[in-house]
Every structure is written in C-alpha cells, then in structure tokens.
C-alpha cells in the first residue's frame, strides 16, 4: 500500500513545570531553554502501524509528512529511521500560530500533492494541544472515511478492519480504502530504530514544501486567519492549602473530615 503518515514535533511533555512558560501577550508557548522538542508520542505508533501493514502486505511505500518548524525534520527522520521511505516537511513562516483546522487544510493539500495513497495514518492526537481533530479535518477535506483511536488495524482486500478503543471497551469497524485512521497508544510499542537505519535515515533528504508549493492561498494560512481565534493563553495558578483534621479518635477524625467535605459540597 501507499501509506502516508503524518507526524508532529511537540515540546517535550516531560518538561518540568518550572520550565514551562507562556508569553501571555503573544499567546505563545515559550520553548523551554535547553529542552529539545520531541516527536509526539502517538506518532511513532502510526509509523509502526504503517510499517507492519506493509510488511504483512509484502511491500509498499511509507511517506511521512510533518508541518512545523525546521527542527520538525527530526520528527520525520525518526520515522525514516524506523523504516519509512520518504519524508516531506511543510515549512513556511505563515504556518506560525495557525490552528488545527488550518493545519488540516495544509496537510490535505500536501497529501494531494503527494498523489496516490491507500491509507493515511496519524497519532490519535498531539500531546501538546491534545485536540485530536486533525484526522477528521483532513478526512472531511479529502472526502475519505476516518476511523479514530485505533488499537489494531488489518487490511482486508480493499478495506481496513479497525479495532477502536472506547471508554468502556472496543469496537470493530471496517472502512473502504482509501481511508484515514488515527492510532492510539493501545496499538503497542513502536520499534526501536536500529543504529544502521538511523545512519541511513540521516543521509536521506527530506523535501521541504512551502505554502505556495502546496497551493495554499494567503487567506488559508497565517495566525490572523485562524478558524478558532485564541482569546487567552496562560498557565493556571494552582493554590493549595493544608488543613489538619483534628479528632480524639480515628472515627472522630473521619467524621469531621466527612462533614467538612459535605460542607464544601465535595461529597
């Protein structure tokens, strides 16, 4: 199959809270000093799914697309080191500050430029904004079915059988190809890139496409044209108070605690 995998580079979710800062005036996250961005943790699972599907199918091609800063090339190289074939970085100054819907538009245009595809795989969401809407957006724009939050994917002739994760169990659905599937962490551990493949991937060229290269008009991109205007961005203040519940016996302490919680309408 011709599979396209979309990956994203995000700030390291392990960044200590003391290093996480936002510029409230510019409504932007300030990159943490000395902490390199990482691949969105769900995305290697999408790459893994692509590789496994093509291995089971006896061949195929995996193209990786990322939209982001120059450094997002590393997220693509990670997928190449895992075994993907080609990489494209969508990089343009006008992409700075765009929202998820604009991202979906840009990705859909880039996918159309890549041309033929049987399946598009993405992580279930990006661990920075955690909205999980891009797969549906791209599906809507390309007019292909979308199956979200997959834990298992199997090719079945001209369709894919997908086991989806639900709050209270699993659901198996089938979608005709071409389709989009977003992959969840339940899919299983992605493979470790092999050292030799890391070195081979390092030598591969990642194509860079600008907004103009994918035919994106000025009105379709840029923070000023967001579909979802950002009103405010701030780090919430977390305040905590400690109160010691007194009582002569454990039972009395428990009773006093229960009364407090009831008074505070917590139970």
């Amino acid at each position: 199959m011709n599979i396209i995998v979309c990956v994203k580079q995000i700030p390291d979710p392990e960044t200590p809270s003391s290093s996480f800062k936002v510029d409230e005036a510019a409504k932007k996250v300030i990159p943490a000093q000395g902490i390199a961005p990482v691949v969105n943790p769900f995305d290697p699972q999408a790459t893994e799914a692509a590789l496994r599907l093509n291995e089971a199918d006896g061949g195929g091609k995996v193209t990786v697309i990322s939209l982001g800063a120059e450094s997002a090339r590393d997220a693509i190289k990670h997928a190449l080191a895992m075994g993907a074939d080609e990489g494209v970085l969508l990089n343009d100054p006008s992409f700075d500050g765009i929202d998820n819907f604009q991202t979906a538009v840009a990705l859909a245009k880039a996918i159309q430029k890549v041309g033929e595809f049987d399946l598009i795989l993405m992580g279930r969401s990006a661990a920075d904004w955690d909205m999980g809407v891009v797969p549906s957006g791209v599906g809507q724009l390309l007019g292909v079915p979308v199956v979200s939050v997959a834990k298992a994917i199997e090719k079945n002739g001209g369709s894919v059988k997908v086991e989806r994760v639900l709050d209270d169990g699993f659901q198996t659905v089938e979608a005709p190809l071409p389709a989009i599937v977003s992959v969840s962490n339940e899919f299983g551990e992605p493979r470790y890139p092999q050292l030799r493949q890391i070195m081979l991937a390092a030598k591969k060229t990642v194509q860079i496409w600008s907004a103009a290269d994918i035919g994106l008009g000025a009105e379709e991109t840029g923070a000023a044209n967001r579909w979802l205007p950002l009103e405010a961005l701030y780090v919430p203040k977390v305040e905590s108070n400690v109160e010691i519940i007194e009582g002569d016996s454990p039972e009395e302490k428990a009773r006093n605690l229960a009364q407090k919680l009831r008074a505070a309408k917590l139970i």
Partner: protein
Amino acid sequence: MDFEPTEGQRQLRLQARALAARFDDAYWRQCDAGHTFPWDFYQAFAEAGWLGIAIPPEHGGAGLGITEASILLEEVAASGAAMNGATALHLTIFGLNPVVRHGSDDLKRRVLPEAAAGRLHVAFGVTEPTAGSDTPSITTFAHRDGDNFRIRGQKVWTSKAKESSKVLLLARTTPLADSPRRTEGMTLFLANLDPNHVTIREIDKLGRHAVDSNEVFYDDLPVEARDVVGEVGRGFYHLLDGLNPERILIAAEALGTGRAALRKAVAYAKERVVFGRPIGQNQGIQFPLADSYAKLQTVELLIRKAGWLYDNGQPCGAEANMAKYLAAEWGFEAADRALQVHGGFGYAREFDVERYWREVRVMKIAPITQEMILNYLGQHELGLPRSY
C-alpha cells in the same frame, strides 16, 4: 574549522537520548539498590544494534568512530543512567578495541559478531592488586602448555566478570626480569571465564552497584593459542591502542553524568522556594551552576577534538588524557554542587543526585588516576623530568 556535528551524529544523539529515556531514574535507583545488572536496558540497546557501534561492518557492527561512541555514552549517562548504564555498554565498545585492531581474522569472526549482537559479554582483566598504574609489574603468568597456555594469577577491579563468559586478559609470558624492556613480554588473551579454573569475588564498593567489580583468581586457566590477541609478548602495546579511546569515552560519561546532575540541580533551584523566592534566584546557588555549565560545555569541545583526532588516525594522547582529567574534575564538581543545591534532600536516595555523585567520583580514579594524567602531561607535554 567546523564545529557542526554531522547529520548522522545529530540523529544518533537524538535517538540514543530517546532510547535511554525509556529507562528512568526510578529504574536505575532500583538496579543500584538491588545490585542487579540492567538487563532490560542492555537488551534494548543490543537489539537496536548500538553495542556494535565501533565494530567494523564486516563483523556485524556499524563501523562508526569513537566520536559517535562518545556521543552515545554521553547521552546514556546524561539520561540519569550514569555509570550503571554506561559501563553496562562500554565494555563491549572499547574493551574489544584490541581484538578489532590486532586480533586474527579467525578470532574476529568468532567473537565480534556475537559481541556486536550483545550475546557475548567480555570483561577486561588488566589491573592487579600490586600493579595498578604500573602495568608492567603484573605477575599473572601464562605458561606454555604445548601449543597452548595455562594462566595463573590474580586480577582486581574486573568489571562485569559475573555476567561475562570471556575476559580480555593481560598476562606475562616472559618474566619482567627477563624482558628486554619492561613493556615487553606481556601477552593479551581472550580467555574463557571457565568456573573450574576461575574464582570471582565481588568487591563491595561506593557506587555503580548495578555492574559488579570483582577480584578474579585464575588457577591454571587453559587458553588455546588461537585465543591470543595479536602477537605473543606484544600485549601491552596492543592494549595501549585501546587506552585513548577508553579515556575519551570515560570523559564523555563523566560529562553526561555531570549534565544529569546539573539538570536536576537547575530544575530543583527553580522549584524550591525558601524565604519567599526560588533558591535559584540567589547568586550563591546560581553562580556555581552557571560555572559548572560553562565547564561542561568546555570539556565537550575537548572530547570532540580528542575523538576527531583518534578517528582521523592522528595522535591524541594529550587530548584524550586532558579530556578525561577535566571531565572527571568538572563532572564530579557538578554532581557535588547538585547535591549541595538539594540541601538535605540531596543526601536522600529518591532525589538521585547522590547516586550520580557516587558514580562520577570513580572517574577521578579509573581508568587512570588524575595524578597519573598530570604526570603524563608534565612529562610529555611540558618536557619536565619524570616525577615517579
């Protein structure tokens, strides 16, 4: 002059960091407290082909240089794995250097692919209780037994002997008194650690508890002639080829451990509020950390230079020694400062900096003492008379 790492080196660093990050401080704390070898960590790196980083491709390795190996080990140490993680890997990386350089084709074929795949563990036996820095004084002796040898003697500080099936062993084949030069008459063997002829006794030590260090007693251990590495009588010289890469890698590990400590200290200094402000706002806390940052950045440059010289076939004795000397000094200093910044909590196991501190301390002693490096620099770089 180009300070930019290659794209391969950059990607290798990112991937080593990502793989090492799968094993967190809690994992290492547990390995250290339980004195258990980090098998899961070791297997993860073995399966992804990292152990063969410096082994030639024709023998199953990646054929990269000491520069790349130093980046790997720095990242492993910097992940918080410190010496427990680095030592678990580095013995395969630099320990086999004499085999790569001087071993027969037969020996390389038998040993290197297995080592690169992580299936063969090799310990390193050179130091003796009465011959540390003065290697030519070793007394472990390999007697001729027909075409083969039998080795008798005692080694100390043999790391990972309990997990290893083979040992790269230096023994005298000509007594010191009969050798034309002190550095001649020693032979390097890749011997089997046969429990019928070998007794291993673990040394209780300050740190790096996940990887054992041992006294090893050899009682007429039989070794076949085909397991001689290089030439009989030239073992010391074969070993010398591996010493500079070892120093460069050890320096990278001290750098990485220093960086792990500094990272913890900076995070704590930002979070810990005393007298109404984060302690990192005080110059008494901030300046030592800034000073350590500058020193660790500086020693990285020296490590890169030493690695570049080695990989390009140029003499690198002074640079490798200076890199190890400064990385050990400044890596330990960073760990010590990190411990101090944490106050009482620095002394507690759960904050990890005490583990880094214990582990990086050994770099000032091994594989060569700081004092012996100063001797080397005084004598060979400054032209001063030999002081010992």
